[in-house]
C-alpha cells in the first residue's frame, strides 16, 4: 500500500508545469482503435494506470499493443475475442467503451459492468438505449453486459440526459453501421471531439462533434493513422487551482485555454490573476481569494471533476461559498475527509456550503476517488503539519507523474510504501 506524504504550509507553488495528454480522451481513443484492422499510432498519451489497464485488456483480446514513451502502437488486425475479463475491467469505468467498439468491429461484445471511481449512481441506461436503437440486443446478467449485433443500422437517438460516455459509445458503434445515425442532445466535451477526430482520420464520417447534434454516416472499414491526444483540461485545472490556493505563480504549458474557460472565469471572479496566451496559462494567486458560488455542469460548464479541488480553494476564501453539484449526486464523499482537516463545510443534498477562511491542518486521509485524491494533495499543501494520503492508486489512475510535477513547483511531497 503506497501513501503520499505532504508537508504543508511550505510556501506558494512557483514554476512551470507541462500538461499531459487527456486521460478522458485517451480512454475512448484506445478502444476506438480496434474498429480498424490497420495499425494505428496514438501520441501524447499520459503514463497512467488507466491507459496501461486498457492496453492489457486489448492484448487479452488478441490485439498487438506496444507502449513506448507516451506513444501506443495498436494493431487490431488479429483481434480474436470480444469478451473482456472482469479482473481488468473492474479497475476502470471507461472499459464500457469496449461495448461500442467491439459491437462495431465484431458484432458482439461481452463486458463486465464497469468499475472506476465511486461517484454515486452512474447508470449506463443511455448507452444501452443507444446500442439498442442501432439494432443491438443488449442483456445485463450475472454482472455482464452482453451485446449481440450481427448488423448495426443507423438510427435517430435522442439522449434523455447529456452523457459523455453514451455519446462516445454510440459514436463508436455507429461508425461502421449501415446508414446514418443522428445523436441529439449529445454531450459536447472536447474529449468527444478528439475521439471523433481520431475516427475521422481513420476514414469514419462523423460531423458535429462538439455540438449537441452529431451525425454519423457508416462506412465499411477504417484505415490506419497517427493521432496526437489533446491536453488534459482537468489536469491543467488541478494545477491552476493548486497555484491559486497556495498564492503561487505557475505557468502551465501545452494547454488549450478555450477548454478551461469556465475555470479561468471562476478564478478571476475570486480575484486571482489568470493570464492566457496561445497554449499557455499563468495563474498568480491572491490571498485570501473572494468567496464565490460554483455550479457544476456538463461542458462548457464548470467541470464536476474539479469540484472537489475548488472546494479546497474556497476553504481559503473570505466568506461563504455555495457549491452545487449538478452532474454526479454522490460526489461529496471527499467532504468528510476535508472536515477532518479542519474545513468548515455543510452538505445538504447536491449543495455544499463552504465557510472560510480556515487554516487546514494535516491529517491521514483516504483518496476516495481520483479527483478527491488530487484535492487532498492541494489541501495537504495548505495544511499545517503533515498530511498522509492513502489509496493513492486512485490518483495514479488519472494523473501522470503527479509527485514529480508538484515537487518541481516547490511542494514537499513524497510517495512511500506504507
Amino acid at each position, binding site marked *: 500500500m503506497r501513501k503520499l506524504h505532504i508537508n504543508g504550509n511550505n510556501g506558494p507553488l512557483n514554476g512551470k508545469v507541462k500538461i499531459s495528454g487527456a486521460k478522458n480522451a485517451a480512454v475512448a481513443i484506445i478502444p476506438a482503435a480496434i474498429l480498424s484492422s490497420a495499425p494505428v499510432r496514438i501520441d501524447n498519451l499520459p503514463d497512467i494506470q488507466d491507459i496501461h489497464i486498457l492496453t492489457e485488456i486489448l492484448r487479452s483480446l488478441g490485439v498487438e499493443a506496444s507502449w513506448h514513451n507516451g506513444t501506443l502502437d495498436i494493431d487490431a488486425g488479429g483481434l480474436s475475442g470480444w469478451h473482456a475479463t472482469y479482473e481488468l475491467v473492474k479497475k476502470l469505468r471507461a472499459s464500457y467503451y469496449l461495448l461500442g467498439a467491439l459491437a462495431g468491429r465484431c458484432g458482439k461484445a461481452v463486458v463486465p459492468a464497469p468499475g472506476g471511481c465511486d461517484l454515486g449512481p452512474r447508470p449506463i441506461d443511455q448507452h444501452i438505449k443507444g446500442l439498442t436503437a442501432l439494432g443491438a440486443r443488449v442483456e445485463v446478467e450475472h454482472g455482464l453486459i452482453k451485446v449481440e449485433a450481427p448488423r448495426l443500422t443507423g438510427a435517430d437517438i435522442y439522449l434523455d440526459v447529456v452523457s459523455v460516455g453514451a455519446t462516445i459509445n454510440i459514436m463508436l458503434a455507429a461508425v461502421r453501421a449501415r446508414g446514418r445515425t443522428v445523436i441529439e442532445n449529445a454531450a459536447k466535451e*472536447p474529449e468527444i471531439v478528439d475521439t471523433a477526430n481520431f475516427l475521422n482520420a481513420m476514414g469514419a464520417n462523423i460531423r*458535429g462533434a*462538439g*455540438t449537441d447534434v452529431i451525425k454519423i454516416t457508416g462506412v465499411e472499414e477504417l484505415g490506419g*493513422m497517427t493521432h496526437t491526444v489533446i491536453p488534459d483540461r482537468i489536469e491543467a485545472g488541478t494545477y491552476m487551482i493548486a497555484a491559486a490556493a497556495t498564492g503561487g505563480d505557475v505557468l502551465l504549458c501545452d494547454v*488549450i485555454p478555450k477548454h478551461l474557460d469556465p475555470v479561468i472565469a471562476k478564478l478571476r471572479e475570486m480575484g486571482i490573476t489568470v493570464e492566457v*496566451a496561445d*497554449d499557455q496559462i499563468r495563474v498568480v494567486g491572491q490571498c485570501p481569494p473572494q468567496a464565490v458560488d460554483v455550479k457544476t455542469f456538463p461542458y462548457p460548464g464548470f467541470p464536476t471533476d474539479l469540484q472537489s479541488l475548488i472546494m479546497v480553494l474556497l476553504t481559503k476564501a473570505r466568506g461563504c461559498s455555495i457549491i452545487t453539484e449538478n452532474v454526479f449526486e454522490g460526489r461529496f464523499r471527499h467532504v468528510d475527509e476535508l472536515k477532518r482537516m479542519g474545513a468548515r463545510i455543510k452538505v445538504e443534498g447536491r449543495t455544499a456550503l463552504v465557510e472560510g477562511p480556515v487554516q487546514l491542518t494535516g491529517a491521514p486521509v483516504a483518496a476516495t476517488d481520483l479527483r478527491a485524491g488530487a484535492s487532498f494533495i492541494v489541501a495537504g499543501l495548505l495544511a499545517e503539519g503533515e498530511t498522509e494520503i492513502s489509496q493513492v492508486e486512485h490518483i495514479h489512475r488519472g494523473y501522470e507523474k503527479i509527485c514529480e510535477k508538484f515537487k518541481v513547483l516547490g511542494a514537499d511531497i513524497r510517495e512511500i510504501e506504507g
Partner: protein
Amino acid sequence: MHDSFDQTVKFKLREDDEVFSAADVFKLVHEALKEKGYNAINQIVGYLLSGDPAYITSHKNARVLIRRLERDELLEELVKSYLERLSGGG
C-alpha cells in the same frame, strides 16, 4: 464594415507584431491538417461550427494560429469570398 469584397482584413497578433489575414490562417491551418492526415475541410468546418480548437492539430502551431482570429471574422471572410466568386468579382 467593409463596403468592398476585395478588401483583405488584417488582424494583429496578441504577442508580436506579425499580422495574418484570414486567407493566411486558412492556408496554413489547411496545410498542417493535411500533413497530419486529416480531412482538412471537415476539421475546419467542425471548428467553425463548434468553436472547439481540438478540431485543429497542434502541428505547425495551427491550433494557436486559428485562434488568432475570432470565428465570426473567419466566417465573414468565407462568406464574403464565396459571394464575391458568385458575383464574378474574384
